[in-house]
């Protein structure tokens, strides 16, 4: 049983990392808290569901379309955020809260409030080995998340573009002085974020029911992981994702599934009270 919990926690945690990466990237580069993150992710999930169910497209082909839709939406969103005045962090919270309400209600209008799930039967079978059990769904989730995280790592740490992005995360003014176009970096961060959300959304639709108001949970996860890792620290995010995933898995086993929703909130409040700069972070 222990290994099962561990495996599901790590698999879930890797996926949570994937969810949080877009949020953390946008926040790190532009200092905008995007509270509509969860709603965007659910929107991507709905797009995938619609293509898969109504157009009968194979599930794999839903990713490009979801990414494309998200790119358009996120670029529009970036225009809105660009108009904000200081203090960016607080103003962006209020603005994106409004955006979240608009997206939520648009989804309610377009897709109705019914619960949807992208049901792929083969994902429910699994590997069984001496009491150890892992479903193909968990395996796929784990592998896909790790691949995407690895690709992002390559972009961030092995390319010139990534260097510029990291410089902007560390110090906007200094980056601008060094000749980096900070505004372009902001747009790029939104684009990368859109791609990440577009990848995570359809996957989310496979493991979780889609309904318009479920985005709030996702947003809370993303906020918790980002603050856990310390602002602008991509390296800590995977650790944070795993800890949250494991914490949720153990809560489900020991306290019951209905307490799961509280884990992220309690973790976030504890963090903000005792280590507001993140577990790995130091005072900036």
């Amino acid at each position, binding site marked *: 049983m222990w290994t099962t919990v561990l495996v599901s926690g790590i698999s879930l945690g890797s996926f949570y990392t994937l969810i949080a990466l877009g949020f953390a990237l946008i926040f790190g580069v532009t200092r905008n*808290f995007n509270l509509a993150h969860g709603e965007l992710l659910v929107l991507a999930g709905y797009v995938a569901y619609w293509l898969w169910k109504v157009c009968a497209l194979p599930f794999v082909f839903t990713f490009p379309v979801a990414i494309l839709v998200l790119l358009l939406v996120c670029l529009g969103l970036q225009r*809105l955020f660009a108009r904000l005045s200081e203090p960016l962090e607080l103003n962006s919270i*209020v*603005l994106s809260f409004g955006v979240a309400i608009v997206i939520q209600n648009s989804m309610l209008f377009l897709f109705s409030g019914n619960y949807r799930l992208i049901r792929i039967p083969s994902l429910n079978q699994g590997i069984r080995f001496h009491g150890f059990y892992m479903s193909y769904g968990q395996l796929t989730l784990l592998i896909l998340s790790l691949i995407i995280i690895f690709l992002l790592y390559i972009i961030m740490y092995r390319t010139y573009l990534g260097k510029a992005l990291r410089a902007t995360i560390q110090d906007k003014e200094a980056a601008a002085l060094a000749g980096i176009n900070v505004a372009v970096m902001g747009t790029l961060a939104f684009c990368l974020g859109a791609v990440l959300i577009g990848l995570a959304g359809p996957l989310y639709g496979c493991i979780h029911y889609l309904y318009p108001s479920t985005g709030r949970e996702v947003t809370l996860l993303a906020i918790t992981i980002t603050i856990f890792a310390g602002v602008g620290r991509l390296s800590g995010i995977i650790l944070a994702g795993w800890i949250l995933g494991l914490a949720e898995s153990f809560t489900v086993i020991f306290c019951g599934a*209905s307490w799961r929703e509280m884990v992220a909130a309690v973790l*976030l409040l504890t963090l903000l009270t005792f280590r507001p700069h993140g577990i790995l972070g130091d005072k900036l």
Partner: protein
Amino acid sequence: MINSSLIKNSRYGLSKRLKLDKVVLLMALFFLLLLPVLVWHNDYILQVFTHALLLATLALAWNILGVSGSISLGHAAFFGAGAYASALLSLDAGLSVWLTIPLAGFITTGLGFIMGLICMRLRGAYFALATLAFIEIPRVVTDNWDGLTHGSLGLVGLPGFPSLHLGSWHIDFYSSITASYYLILIYSLVLLGLVGFIFRSNLGLALQAIREEEVAAEAVGIRANSFRLLSMLLSAFFTGISGACYAHLVRYINPGLVYGLHFSAIPMIFAICGGRFTVIGPALAALIIYPLDQFIFHPLIPAGHEFLYGAVLIFAVLFMPAGFWGRMQRNTEVGLFTKSSSSGI
């Protein structure tokens, strides 16, 4: 840089603003008092305005904390706790509704104290995020503590407001919505007067000073954290009372409904659209936006009509950060968020 001139300025600003306030207040008051006659006791219209008034009280209560520069996204925690406290006390303990509503206020104040202890060290964006996360705790506890709260299915058949006997007068809240309407109207007027009083009192001046420049406010001897905690307790108390009124007005609650993000969003949206640093702006916004939603957008787009709230919030943040009422007064140069609230943690 803070000195008595700031305090004086805001006092001066208040007195200048009073004239316009009074005219609009009188007009609105007249309209609200005569409304049941004007609409021939049309139940639907009265019901919408009863709710609008209740939401106005939420916005007013939110603004007691809002005036200190803090943005709370967690008032649904207070609203839900107030609704549940009053509902359970009246349903299971059999207490009179007139007693359970103030009790609910005090219970919610206790919750506000817990939230205050956790969140008061945080500023600006991090305060907002912490309050947003805080809602989950009472919601999940209410969801799971079946023995006390009857679980996630909610409570049905709550008692409404009991009839009142004042001498020969007999006010029956069951048969006519008009009586409930006037009850909520009286409550919102009392709260409006209280908020006006608080804003002008030393507490209000201290909160405004904290908003403008917290370090400077502390330097002149304002204990910022105590004042902010006090404003949160007051805000929680009245939000709890509004929640309790909601429970007895609608007579059906469940955790997803009363702890929903809706009741966190609504007071913030009304306060920011109406003008966070004004007394009556939030209430006016509630009385305009909610009926607009119910009478025009709801019939047009039954699913998804609430996008209106998001749209007006986006519009207000980008183009009218002082709110429409704050903009009309234009006597103080105050943006939506001042520098001090950006100082982070």
